[in-house]
Structures are given as structure tokens and as C-alpha cells.
């Protein structure tokens, strides 16, 4: 449901807020677990794509938030 909503509103903030109801883990972990479950349950490729889109969005968000590693030169 969260992934479907994300399709229309493209808000990772809202998706993260909705996924927070599931627990304290990173939202990306829930989406990845959902993809695994969906594959096991033979969900359609379209549904898995929707989940993958959301996972990709969270990964992108993480990449932009992660600060660059500072290199210290002596």
C-alpha cells in the first residue's frame, strides 16, 4: 500500500512515515523484506516493480543524506 501510494505522490517522507508504523527499523529494510515476501508469494511483476521503485527511492535518499567520508592528509 505504501509503495502504491508512493507511485502517485512520490513522497519518501510520507512513505517513511507510513512505514514507521511497522517498527523502528529503517524504512528501506521493510521494503526489501516486502520484495522478498512478494517474490515468495508469487506477486505479479508489476507489484514487485512498484516495491522496487520505493526501495530505489529510499536508497537514493540514503545516498544523498550520507555525508562524504573526509580524507585527512598528513
Amino acid at each position, binding site marked *: *500500500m*505504501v509503495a*502504491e*501510494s508512493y*507511485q502517485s*505522490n512520490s513522497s519518501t517522507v510520507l512513505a517513511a512515515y507510513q512505514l514507521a508504523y511497522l517498527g523502528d527499523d529503517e524504512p528501506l529494510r521493510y521494503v526489501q523484506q516486502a520484495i522478498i515476501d512478494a517474490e515468495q508469494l*508469487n506477486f505479479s511483476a508489476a507489484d514487485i516493480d512498484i516495491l522496487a521503485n520505493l526501495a530505489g527511492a529510499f536508497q537514493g535518499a540514503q545516498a544523498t543524506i550520507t555525508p562524504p567520508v573526509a580524507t585527512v592528509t598528513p
Partner: protein
Amino acid sequence: MNSRYSQEPQHPPYYLLTGLILGLLFGFGVSFLFFPVRYTNVPPETLQNVDKDQYRLMIASAYQANNDIGRAQARLGILREENVSGLLLQQAQRSERRSDAQLLLKLSQALEKVPEMAETGPPIAQASITLSQSQTNTPLAGGEMATDQPVRTATMEATRIVATRTPFPSPSSVSSLNIPFRLVEQKTICNPAYTDTLIQVEVVDKKEKPISNVRIFVNWDGGQDIFYTGFFPEISIGYADFSMNPQETYSLRVGEIGEVIQNISAPECQDGAGKNYWGSISLLFAEP
């Protein structure tokens, strides 16, 4: 001679009472503050009303995105509520945000247009009723779940609605009919959060892997029903449940030749306040 002792006042052992009270306080503190019970993988029907509201809102939000009314109905059906459309309307009226209210209202109105499915109870029970009715040439009322049976394509209505109900695993064939499933575990579930008194069944294979689309027969005095595993993948694809009447005694069989379990009835439970309520039964069946 013993006057010295007889004059001493006799104090009750208050220190024991003090120790008991301190122990209880410490126990409550540990269990409520430091290690509170966390429920996981519970069915959505056991959620608190606030969380149910959030669940309905997510369904409405997803419906806004995909316009898939069948999927929305299937999700709402898991809450096991009656008058779903009315509940959505009520929630829309008490919503603080206008956008939420619009989402809920849209879904409520969409459900009104398909009244034969709006009054969803447990979808599995409806599937079984549809099967027996269609075999006697009775029109398919609420036959939305009928595509896992040969009679499913009998009407345009059934075909049209089934096409939109995709969240469940696709039950391609009933391949487990000739497995003599055996009961391996029976538990009493005392959870006051359950709104229904259930027979909860889980069916697994030799490797303890859940099996979907297994037919389960339940009989009681003057009635019988059939339901299937696989309609609650959020819990387990091998899971199915049936709402009991606490006044009835049931017998249950998994598959065509499985072990028949007799004398299943609702257990009596007691909550923390000493109030009695009806509990549920959990049965685990496995392929021998």
C-alpha cells in the same frame, strides 16, 4: 517467670508484606517500562481503533493511486468489519485533514457502487458459500472469490471482480487434497484484543513450509462450511481461520483425507480484571 517475653508486643511480620509489595512494584516496573510485551504479526483486526483508522487511510491512499477497488476491498476485508463503506464515511467525517477525508470519501463512494462486496466478512467463508450455491444453479451472490474453482467463470460478474483482486497468492490448483494432514499442535489463544472467536489453522508441508490453497472442512450440528488457506499472506500463506459460535462444537478436517479433529469449541478465558471472555483455538497441521 516469662513476664519479660509476655510484655513484648507481638508485631505481625510486616516486613514480608513490604517485601511482597516492593517485589510486585519492581515486577510491574520491569514488565511495563523496561521490557513491555511487543506483539508482532498480529492480524489487522486486532489493531486498536486509532491504528485501524491509519490502516484504512493507507488503503484509501493506495486506492487513490491505483483505482483498484477489488484490491481495496480485499484489504478492508482483513479488518473483518461490517458496513465498511459506512465506517470509511465516519472516518472521513472525523478526519482532521481535508485531503485524508477526500481519500476516504472517494473509497467509500467507490464501495457503495459495488454493494455486493462492500459488506465483506471473512473472504474465505464467502468463497466456500459461493461454491455450494453455484453448484445448485443459484445465482452467484458476492462471488468475487470464485476464480479458484471451476465454476468461477459462470458469470460475467465473477470474472470482472476477480480480475482486480490480486494481493493474495494466486491459488493455481488444489494440489494437497490427497495428503493425510495430521494435527501436530493445538493451542488455546487467550487474547482479549481478538474481536472474533476463531479456529486458526496453519498447514505446513514436510519441511514445515506453509501451504496455500488447502481446503479445510468444518462441521457443526446442523451446518458445515469450507475455507481455504492462503487468504491472509500477511500472517502466513498456510494460514486460514474460521469464526466460531461459542455455543457450538465443531469438527474439522484439512484436505480430503486429513485427520478429523472432533470436539473443537471456544475456550473460556479470563482477562486481567477477572472478566471471562471466549478465546480462540490454534491448530497446526503438517504433512506426515
